[in-house]
């Protein structure tokens, strides 16, 4: 991406959770929720992250924001390695990074009024007067399409889509540069989902926001993203510009995933690539390429050797032994 500033560089990021067992509750293994993930994020773009349940999407998002401590690897945000910063040193950086969650019901405090919810992050930073804070709340409510009267109401008085707007207004309070949306529209009805997607696109233009957009709905991700990363069992199987991933997927998993999505169109039935078997457990992932147990193209090498993410032209990268690197010159 020529001429674009990198906002975030992620290098070999790992997040392992211990698995406890036995009477002594000793650590008997690890869930490798995020396992050696590297990518860049450019200012003003939307990177979509897709993958099946348990593939590590949420863990990746939470680790990038340092809501979870990484097991290993670097997270370089605007040139600073934040992967090991103390809580105190993280505080000034936190206001630049915000998260919007899937469940608009669980993520808002039911005992606080909408005004208080949106105002709260400003109180922590202590830079604005009461009047300035109130004006800002009203301004933000209008930006996300709610009336100023919403200030004095409580979350339960709003519908799911409206609650998601409140969550977005709150995320915008501190003028962040970077927003991670973890399934931000998944809980919404389709007619309301498109309202929120349109809003997120408008706000991105208005505030020059960079998005990491996590979702399992491949149609939604295609619509909103500039680039897309595909995760499988804690690893990035493929990443690239949206039109490359959707029109010319390279990884057999991406191909199968895309062919499985039912499309609301009766005139075009697409050929499906059917995957056999179930998603393996991330506490006991297959050796070699993690996808080889379900891969229609698996061969001997896939069972023993972990494939690296390699360049395949125009910013497309794939981790699969079917391809050989073209840019290691």
């Amino acid at each position: 991406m020529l001429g674009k500033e990198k906002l975030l560089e992620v290098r070999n990021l790992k997040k392992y959770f211990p698995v406890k067992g036995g009477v002594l509750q000793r650590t008997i293994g690890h869930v490798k929720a995020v396992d050696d993930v590297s990518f860049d994020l450019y200012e003003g773009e939307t990177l979509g992250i897709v993958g099946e349940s348990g593939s590590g999407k949420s863990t990746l998002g939470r680790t990038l924001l340092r809501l979870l401590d990484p097991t290993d690897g670097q997270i370089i945000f605007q040139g600073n390695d934040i992967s090991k910063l103390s809580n105190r040193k993280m505080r000034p950086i936190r206001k630049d990074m915000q998260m919007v969650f899937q469940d608009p019901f669980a993520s808002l405090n039911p005992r606080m009024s909408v005004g208080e919810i949106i105002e709260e992050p400003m109180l922590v930073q202590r830079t604005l007067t009461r009047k300035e804070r109130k004006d800002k709340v009203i301004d933000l409510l209008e930006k996300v399409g709610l009336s100023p009267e919403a200030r004095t109401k409580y979350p339960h008085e709003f519908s799911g889509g409206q609650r998601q707007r409140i969550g977005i207004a709150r995320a915008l309070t501190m003028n962040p540069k970077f927003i991670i949306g973890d399934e931000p529209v998944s809980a919404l009805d389709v007619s309301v989902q498109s309202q929120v997607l349109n809003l997120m696109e408008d706000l991105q233009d208005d505030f020059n926001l960079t998005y990491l957009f996590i979702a399992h709905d491949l149609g939604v991700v295609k619509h909103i993203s500039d680039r897309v990363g595909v995760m499988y069992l804690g690893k990035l199987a493929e990443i690239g510009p949206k039109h490359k991933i959707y029109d010319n997927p390279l990884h057999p998993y991406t191909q199968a995933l895309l062919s499985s999505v039912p499309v609301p169109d009766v005139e075009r039935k697409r050929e499906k690539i059917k995957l056999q078997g179930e998603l393996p457990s991330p506490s006991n992932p297959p050796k070699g390429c993690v996808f080889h147990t379900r891969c229609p193209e698996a061969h001997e090498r896939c069972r023993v050797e972990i494939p690296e993410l390699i360049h395949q032209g125009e910013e497309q990268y794939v981790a699969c032994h079917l391809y050989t690197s073209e840019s290691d010159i």
Partner: protein
Amino acid sequence: MQEKTDSKQEIGQKKTDVLLQVEGLKTYFYMEQDKVAKAVDDVSFTLKKGETLALVGESGSGKSITSLSLMRLIPSPPGKIIEGSIKLDGTDLLSLSEKDMRKVRGNDIGMIFQEPMTSLNPVYTIGNQIAETLMKHKKLKKKEAYKRAVELLKLVGFARAEQIVHEYPHQLSGGMRQRAMIAMALSCDPKLLIADEPTTALDVTIQTQILDLMVEMKEKFESSILLITHDLGVVAEVADRVLVMYGGQIVEEATAYELYTNPQHPYTVGLLNSIPNLESDVERLESIKGTVPPAHRFPKGCRFAPRCKHVMDKCYEANPDLLEKDSNHKVRCYLYEE
């Protein structure tokens, strides 16, 4: 593709045998402060033998309550079927005793839910649960029942069926549980299979397996399917005909081909245009303003009027009827009234 349409229409005409006929069904919930939720409010439809009929609509539109009414499983109080008739192969289900109804549930109707754990019992093995049903409804001996359970599990794609019969629901993944539930629902060769969001909780690669399986099983057992879903992609893939529900009522009914190529109701059109799908590439998604009204506070007149782009004065006065446009298309909207 032309070929496919023809064959679908042909099937549609051949399948004149009606399996299920629902007429004027009303299921209301009586809540505190005299509030009445009209969850299902005058719903009529037929399901033909061998047909897959989809019931689509957003959250709260009344899909699950419609299917629970068919099974007579409405929690009462607060719920009650207050009007209408439900005929399965000529038998009026609403006039049956609870004892006879239980037989219908075991033998004639199989049900698959979104969350398999709600219908699989965590303390019994998979084999035990399937065998139990077979012993009760098919009067099989224990040994035969277990043998049949293994067969059914093989049929729904378990390679290790002999082991799975001895495993407990929690030992299976979501997709495996859903398959076990299909095996259980099919164990008594039901005439009607009701599937309420059978794949919503599953990943797309697993969803494909389950949908294929349901269609395959329907053909093998010559049964009919009532498929409840909010996913218009799934509907396009498996349904012969579609009912679109909004606010407890059917607002459009058509063959799947008609509905996708020629949607009529502004709600259906809005819904189809607001889904970002893999085939389309639009700058900006269409959206329907506002939200779905709660079942105890439907607006006067057409229930969709406050959100409709084409709303007219009369839409606020009286609710339009579901009228036949032509033999395979009905719509509830004043735009199409002569």
